[in-house]
Structures are given as C-alpha cells and as structure tokens.
C-alpha cells in the first residue's frame, strides 16, 4: 500500500509536473512562435518608411528650399542666376504631381512700375526715396504628370511643356527675378484631367536643384572674363505614411488636438537642425582667401491657400529658433533667429546687421577656429493647428577677395560655391506641421 501510495503520489506529482511542463511547453512554443513571427518579418519590417525628412530617399512630398532666378542682374551684382530643377518619378506608375513655387522676394512699397530694378529689393536702401522694403509671400501652382521612371528637368525662369518629353503639364516660370522655394507632392489620378489634387500614399519622387551663378564675357563691363559657378543640393523629402487622408492638408507628423492632423501622413519635421560649417571669414586652408556660408531656412508649416499674386506673408506661422554654436575648442555661444516665412541669410547676419558681421557668433574672428557646429532648434507653440518645424540647406562660398567690411564671399565678389544638405536630429514628437493648400481651377 505504501508503494501504491507512493506510486499515487509520484503519479500525482508526475502528472502535475507533466501538466506544468505541457503548459510551459505550450507557452514556450507559443512564445517561440511569436518570436519566429517577429524575426521572420524583421527583414521586411526593416525596410521601413522614414519618420524624418530625407534628402537621399524617394518621397511623396519634396521641398526645394532655395530656388533663385536673376536673369537681369537686378541689383548690379555682375552675374546672372538661374536654377535647374530635376524631378524624377522612381516608381512604376505615372504620377500626377502638384507643385507650388513660393515667392519670398521682397518688394518696395513705393515702386511705380513693374520694372524689376525698381520693384524688387533686399533692404529699403534698394527702394526709391521714402520707400520700404516689405517681405512678400505668394505662391504659383501647377500640375504635371511624370510617367514611370521618368526624369524631368526645367529652368525655373522658363516655361516648360512636359508634353515635349512624354510627360504632361506646363511648368510655370517664376519670371526674371525670384527667390523662394518649390514644393511638390504626389496626388491622385493618372492625368491632369482626372486628378482631384488630393495627396496619396506614395513615395516615388526625388529631386535636385542646381543653382547657377554666371556671367558671359564682357559682362558687366568690357574686359570681364566669363565665369561659371554651379552648386547642387538634393530636395528634402518627406515620405508618405501608409494612410494619407484625401483632403488638402499635408500632415507632417501628428498634432494631438489638431483639427486636421491628429494622425501623421508624412514624416515629421526635425527637432534639431545640425549645421557643420566654416565660420564666416575663415581662411580657406588650400586656396587662401576667405569662406562664408549662407543658410536657407524654410518652414515646414505653410498656408498655400492664398490665391496667386496675393501676399500671404501674414498668414504664415512665424517661428523663433534657438541656436547653439560650438567651435573647435568646444566653446559654446548662443543666438536666435526669427523665420517669418522664409529666411535666406549669411550665417553672420543671423545675429548681426550687415556691416557688423565680424562681431557675429558665426565669425571666425570671434570664434577663433575655422569650423563650427551649429544646432538650430525651433521653439514650438501651443497651437495644435500649426507647426514650427524648419528645414535647411547651406551654401558655402570661397573667394580670393572677400568684402573688406563684411567678410562676405557672395556676389558681387567672384566666388566659387557649393551647396549641401543640413543634418537633422530627432523629430518634433509633440506636435507636427501642416501644409494647407488649394489648387487654382
């Protein structure tokens, strides 16, 4: 009986242990199945959409932060400018693309004609007596069709009919003088006729902009040698997420409480922009002369609902950004910048007025080293229906004879230049950005 009892006890214990083992096995197998499922999908899951802006991946919404045209040398700088835009559909389907030029060129408020030399200005000193140079912001939109795998290109100053190259649509010109940006995104439909211009979840676009500064021989004066200078940057892409609403709002990241952008439709704008640059006035280690850098800051949030020719500058969201500047001694200075709708500036004119650049936190005279790291962080407002994100590109100018007062190397001084994309760290997790638009009938 004892043995029987023992057998019973062992049986109970064994049964209990066996059951436990079965349960554990089931749990383990089930868990292992979960692990296998996770690992099995990992290679494909790894091919994820980017949650941040990229300039080296195809995307659904691409921004060219700086487009310039000056076919008439409006300010007598001794050179002409134009921008070559390249846009490619890397996908297998024809894509309808909606584009907006944003004109941020400033205008004199007392211009008596549309003559560019009296209309456009950089400062009030460019205007007739008593005039003020006021910021402008207006958009021009156009719709094009890019066929599968097709690269297209156009000069920003010119009208281009893409039907001449197997696409469709008319690329509108920006005119003889322009400074601003270009934004393009994929929309529904397969032709200009059947599109409703609502955005879609697709990531087929890549773009490049080449900015030319050049002059022919004997311009602006007899005896002047011809000069060619070209700089190129990649358009900044925001990849579309799997779900994009069929409305005329592009939601870059998500904004809880937002009327239109509670859910992200595109990658979010960065939290911090990182610039690696030479300080203004730094001596070129190889060529001698000096180096200066311009930064172009474009807002991620934009209101493109104003009609063509309407000055929408007051409808844009102003943003203040905090700036930290580090030199090669790890020393840190700070500054801030206000971006109302578009800002293109020499670095040392961020914190100093023209003529005082040598006192700037971005000047090699102040910093004492040749290169620096600058971190730009936009300050986010509490309004969930607008955003404060920024993107940037840089242009670096090298010249043998910088402006003795400003240390600048940009025109009118002969120069060579290069453009490159900024780096980004993090995304604005608490609030996104929104691009609202309407398309002219």
């Amino acid at each position, binding site marked *: 009986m004892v043995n029987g009892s023992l057998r019973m006890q062992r049986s109970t214990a064994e049964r209990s242990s066996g059951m*436990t083992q079965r*349960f*554990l096995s089931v*749990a*383990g197998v*089930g*868990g292992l199945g979960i692990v296998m499922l*996770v690992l099995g999908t*990992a*290679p*494909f899951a*790894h*091919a*994820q*959409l*980017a949650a*941040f802006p990229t300039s*080296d*991946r*195809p995307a659904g919404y691409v921004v060219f932060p700086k487009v310039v045209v000056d*076919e008439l040398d409006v300010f007598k700088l001794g050179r002409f400018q*134009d921008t*070559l835009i390249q846009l490619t559909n*890397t*996908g297998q389907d024809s894509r309808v693309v909606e584009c907006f030029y944003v004109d941020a060129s400033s205008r004199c408020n007392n211009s008596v004609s549309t003559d560019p030399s009296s209309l456009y200005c950089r400062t009030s000193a460019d205007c007739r007596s008593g005039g003020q140079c006021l910021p402008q912001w207006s958009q021009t939109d156009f719709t094009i069709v890019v066929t599968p*795998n097709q*690269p297209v*290109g*156009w*000069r920003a100053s010119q009208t281009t009919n893409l039907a001449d*190259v*197997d696409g469709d649509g008319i690329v509108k010109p920006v005119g003889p003088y322009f400074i601003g940006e270009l934004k393009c995104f994929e929309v529904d439909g397969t032709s200009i006729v059947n599109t409703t211009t609502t955005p879609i979840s697709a*990531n087929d676009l890549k773009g*490049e902009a*080449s900015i030319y500064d*050049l002059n*022919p*021989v004997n311009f602006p004066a007899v005896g002047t040698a011809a000069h*060619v200078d070209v700089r*190129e940057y990649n358009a900044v892409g925001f990849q579309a997420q799997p779900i994009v609403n069929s409305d005329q709002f592009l939601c870059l990241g998500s904004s809880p409480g937002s009327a239109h952008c509670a859910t992200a439709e595109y990658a979010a704008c960065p939290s911090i922009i990182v610039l690696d640059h*030479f300080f203004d006035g730094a001596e070129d*280690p*190889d060529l001698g002369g000096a180096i200066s850098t311009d930064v172009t800051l474009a807002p991620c949030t934009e209101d493109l609902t104003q009609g063509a020719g309407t000055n929408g500058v007051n409808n844009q969201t102003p943003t203040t950004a905090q700036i930290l500047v*580090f030199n*090669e001694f*790890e020393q*840190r200075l700070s500054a801030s910048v206000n971006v109302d709708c578009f800002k293109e500036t020499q670095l040392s004119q961020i914190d100093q007025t023209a003529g005082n650049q040598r006192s700037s936190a971005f000047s090699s005279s102040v910093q004492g080293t*040749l*290169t620096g*790291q600058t971190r730009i962080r936009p300050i986010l407002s509490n309004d969930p229906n607008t955003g404060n994100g920024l993107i940037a590109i840089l242009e*670096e100018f*090298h010249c043998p004879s910088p402006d003795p007062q400003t240390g600048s190397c940009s025109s009118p001084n002969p120069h*060579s230049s*290069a*453009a490159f*994309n*900024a*780096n*980004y*760290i993090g995304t604005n997790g608490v609030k996104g950005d929104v691009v609202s638009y309407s398309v002219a009938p």
Partner: protein
Amino acid sequence: MRTIQYVRAGCLISTLAACIMMAGSARADVSTERPGSLLIFPKVVQAGGRETIIQITNTGNSVDNLHCFYIAGQDGPSGHPLCQITDFFISLTKQQPTHWDVSTGRSVNPTDSIEGFDPGVIPPVAPGFTGALVCAEVDADTSPVAMNKIKGEATLEGPNGDISKYNGVAIQGSSPDNNNILSLNPNGVEYDACKTAAIFNFIPDGAPDPIIEALGDGGICSSGTRSGLGCNNTGDCPGAGATCLTGQSQVLNTITALPCNLDFQTQVPTNFNLGYLVIDGDEVTHTTSSGPLSCWASINLSDISQAVSTAVGGPLAGPVASMRITGISGGPVLLVGESFHVDSERDIGAAAVNLHMTGLCQAPGTQAPDLTQTCTTTADCPATWTCISSQSSTIKLPALNP
C-alpha cells in the same frame, strides 16, 4: 497557481527573448543627413590640381573616439589600384567639430596656426591620392561602439579655385559585437546595411548646359576680332559677318564608388562590378555594366556609352537623365556623383551631390534584384516580389590586440 506561474514564466521568457531580439534589430539607418557610427567619404582627392578638406563633428555630449582609414584607390605601377590602407585615431570632445586638409593632415600642436583642439595625429595623404576615407566609432580600447554621433562633409577644391561639397555617408549602429568584424546587415544588428542601389540624376554627358547656353558663354565667335573666343550671342562677336556659334558648352559627369565590403585587416581589395540602368527624358532605358573593378573606382560617364548625350553621338535624349547603379558582384556600394559644367572658354563649375539610395524588387526564383523596379517596402513591388532594401556586407578592422 504554480501552473499559472509557469505559464506566465514561459510567456515572459518568450516575450523577453522576442524583445531582446527586436532590440538587437532595432532600426538603424544609412543616411547622409543623420549622425552615425560609421562615417564614409567615398571620394577623397589630392591629385590633378584638386584638394580635399574633411570636416567631422561629434554631435553627442560625450567624448567620441574614431578609428579612421584612408583607402588609396589610385593605380599603382602594376596598373591596378594600390588599395593601400593608412589608419589613424582621433578623439573628439562633446559637440566638437574638427577639420583637416588631406594633403597636410593635422598634427597635435597647440602652438601651430590651426586653432582648436587637435583631435589626433592625422597623416597627410601622398600626392596623387584618389580614394576614400572611412571612420568608425570605437571606445578607448579601440573596440567598436555604436554611439551614432558622428557626421561629416568633404569639400573638393580645384582645379582653378572651384569647389564642390558632399555629405559623408553615416551608417548607424546598434550593439556591435566586441570584435573587429563589423557586420552591416539588413536586420540592423551591429550596423545597418548599405542600400541595394543608388540613383544619379544628371544632364546627359557631353550635352550642352542649358543655363550656360542661355546666360553664359555657350558659344564661340566664328570670325572677327574675337574669333574662337567665348560668346553668348552674336553681339559679343565684333567683325563683319561674325556670329556666335552656340552649343559649345558641355556637362561632364563622374560617379565614385566604394564597396561596402572592406577588409582593413588583410587589405585584400574587394573586387566588384556595377550594373547600370540609364533612363532618359523620353523614358528610353539603356542597360549596361562596368568591367571588373577593384577596391575603389571613379568612373567618367563618358566611358559608359549608355550615359552619353545624343549631342556627342550617344543615345541619351535630354534635357536630363537618370541612372540607377547597383553592385552586381562584390556586394553593395556607396557612391558620390559630381558634375562639371564647362563653358566655351573651358571655365568649369563643379557640383558634387550625394546619390539617392533605394531598394530594388526581386522576383521569386531570380538571382538578383531588378534595376527597373525600385522600392521602399515590399508593397511597392509586384505581387510575389520582395523588396531588397539593403544587402549585407562586412568591414574588417585590424586585429584589436596584435
């Protein structure tokens, strides 16, 4: 009760294992605009009147040590790439930027004319150097670490004072093994993998530049006092009957390729081949491939017959074209593009650009992905096809304790 505990334990263990494995494969990235743990400059030149300035920045809040390698890709006496490796160590304090000219390097000398914390002894490259620079984050014991804090740019200067610039390619890492073999793989364990293909957009090689033709010296005078000299229009050509013969400008393009498989340990060069798919503005496609390449390559598009403009006898109709490039043997590659815009007086404007990186779709049962089908995810591919976003490679560092 105990059974429930066992079940919970089983689930916990399994879930924990899944989490650990997923953490190990946490998403990393190859990028030209985000900091990483590997920083690669595919094009470094100190030859032919050109110089290169390297800028590297530590974007983090702690010291970052780097083990860097120059790869000399110029041909040696045998006519093959030297593939000589020169390595050095630098150390950057928090948020510190640094720079050096590759022709002079940089010494540790607080009293020299180069202001700033000297990051370490950086040797100069030899005259005639054309190749690449690769830097990897390491700890104080020279073991690889993945802090993902470094970014950089390369400025190419000359000839004749012109400059162009591109961003270094940063590869993010996560949890590298404590050995000297860096695994770059699609799961992102250790380091993320190089993308399967790259896309270069360009004005067809040899074609006139449309903006130089319009605004600069795109022609030469046919006769008169400025015969043979540059002009924009006939008004620039004094003399009876003199005209400006336009169409004399041209655009020339190069791509520079560095394989992602690198062996700094034995210095055996990686042999590789590139496949090209060129698409012109009329969507006509042209395919070809390179011959055998080794270690590093700088390729003129004029040597790729499929990338040449109709203006000089090639097949490409303008105004722009697009080229897809993939490694068809030897593993994936990293590339930089550069275009040279030449007016009729041979004045040159150079512009470098980082190439877009992409995956390629692969059909079931085929040996290689298809250059005609780019993708970000498998959803972009035809049914039953798979998106090969990136491909595995390894970077072998020298033995840690020889």
